[in-house]
């Protein structure tokens, strides 16, 4: 099971209350099971107080938990090293066998209770990936990862694009979609939590659509975002293609690509390549079940859709 810390810690719900009680129990029993971490270089057996220390220092319950359905806590750690995780699961399973949970019966209300902000009916969800394709071996390995997110295209926007495309003439892509892509998805999410762009940081932005064949659009444009202090930027070109279903107006065969140059560290994403680097952000359609549950980063963090829908 995976979840957003913000949903479990801050967004008031029965789920949030239940989870924070679990955190309290985990802390009370000091069940952090850090058996050394290759990532941090600490020795085996050092620190049994990860969760307690995290919560004391920054009120942050991020990490991996193992517990029973009744809330019996078994283990916690916040290391992502595969060997550490295997040890965590071994410890958790052993404790589960020693102290199995009691039977629980959840009611329908709990099972169907909203857990996070989900896309409105008729919204199309796209997957979003970011990548630094030329990350040299000399820099932090985190630069070789892939950033992920989901992107929402609202029902009325799908209709608007379909109507504009039906004219057969080239048209400017709806500004709301273009600005949403630029501000909340053309981000360097490769090394972790990215900074979204403020409205005033969008220096220039354009995206046009050209009908090409039955129900197909070719997209082309450009973008430039820069922080006020000029320390971080991302600028480049946009190319894309998508096919519009004539009945539902949903998109298929989607490939939207931002290809540009980025520079500068994010608040939580230091250790970027030392020089301006190529950054790619791609969007494509998805039918993953989690796409209907996991909102775009901006929505999940702010717990609202206002700014995301009207950037």
């Amino acid at each position: 099971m995976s979840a957003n810390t913000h949903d479990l810690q801050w967004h008031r719900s029965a789920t949030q209350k239940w989870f924070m009680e679990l955190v309290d129990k985990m802390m009370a029993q000091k069940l952090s099971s850090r058996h050394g971490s290759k990532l941090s270089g600490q020795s085996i057996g050092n620190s049994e107080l990860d969760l307690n220390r995290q919560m004391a220092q920054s009120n942050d319950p991020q990490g991996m938990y193992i517990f029973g359905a009744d809330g019996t806590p078994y283990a916690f750690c916040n290391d992502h090293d595969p060997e550490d995780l295997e040890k965590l699961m071994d410890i958790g399973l052993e404790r589960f066998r020693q102290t199995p949970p009691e039977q629980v019966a959840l009611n329908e209300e709990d099972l169907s209770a909203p857990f996070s902000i989900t896309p409105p009916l008729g919204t199309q969800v796209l997957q979003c990936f970011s990548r630094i394709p030329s990350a040299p071996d000399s820099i932090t390995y985190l630069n070789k990862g892939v950033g992920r997110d989901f992107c929402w295209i609202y029902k009325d926007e799908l209709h608007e694009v379909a109507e504009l495309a039906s004219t057969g003439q080239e048209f400017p892509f709806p500004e709301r979609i273009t600005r949403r892509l630029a501000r909340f998805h053309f981000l360097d999410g490769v090394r972790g939590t990215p900074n979204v762009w403020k409205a005033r940081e969008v220096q220039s932005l354009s995206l046009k659509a050209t009908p090409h064949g039955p129900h197909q659009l070719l997209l082309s444009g450009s973008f430039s975002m820069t922080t006020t202090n000029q320390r971080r930027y991302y600028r480049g070109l946009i190319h894309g293609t998508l096919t519009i279903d004539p009945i539902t107006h949903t998109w298929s065969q989607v490939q939207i690509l931002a290809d540009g140059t980025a520079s500068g560290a994010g608040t939580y994403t230091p250790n970027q390549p030392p020089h301006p680097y190529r950054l790619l952000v791609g969007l494509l359609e998805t039918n993953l079940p989690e796409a209907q549950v996991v909102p775009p980063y901006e929505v999940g963090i702010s717990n609202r859709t206002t700014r995301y829908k009207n950037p």
Partner: protein
Amino acid sequence: MSWPDKAQGEESEISAKNLSERFQLVEPTEIEQKWKEVGWRTHLMQARQEAAELEKPIFLWIMVGNPQGCT
């Protein structure tokens, strides 16, 4: 608008014609998608129900931003 269009030691001709080639650079590889095969649940209460029925413990991974998305 001008910007460096050459990555380190790599051809990077930007054009609509090579969109698919460039798009492949950003898509995750099979290895990078392997963790998805776990079959992650995303509703805590439903996960509790399932764990109770299967008599298994729950492994919960939380980050600022769901790990299934941006984090």
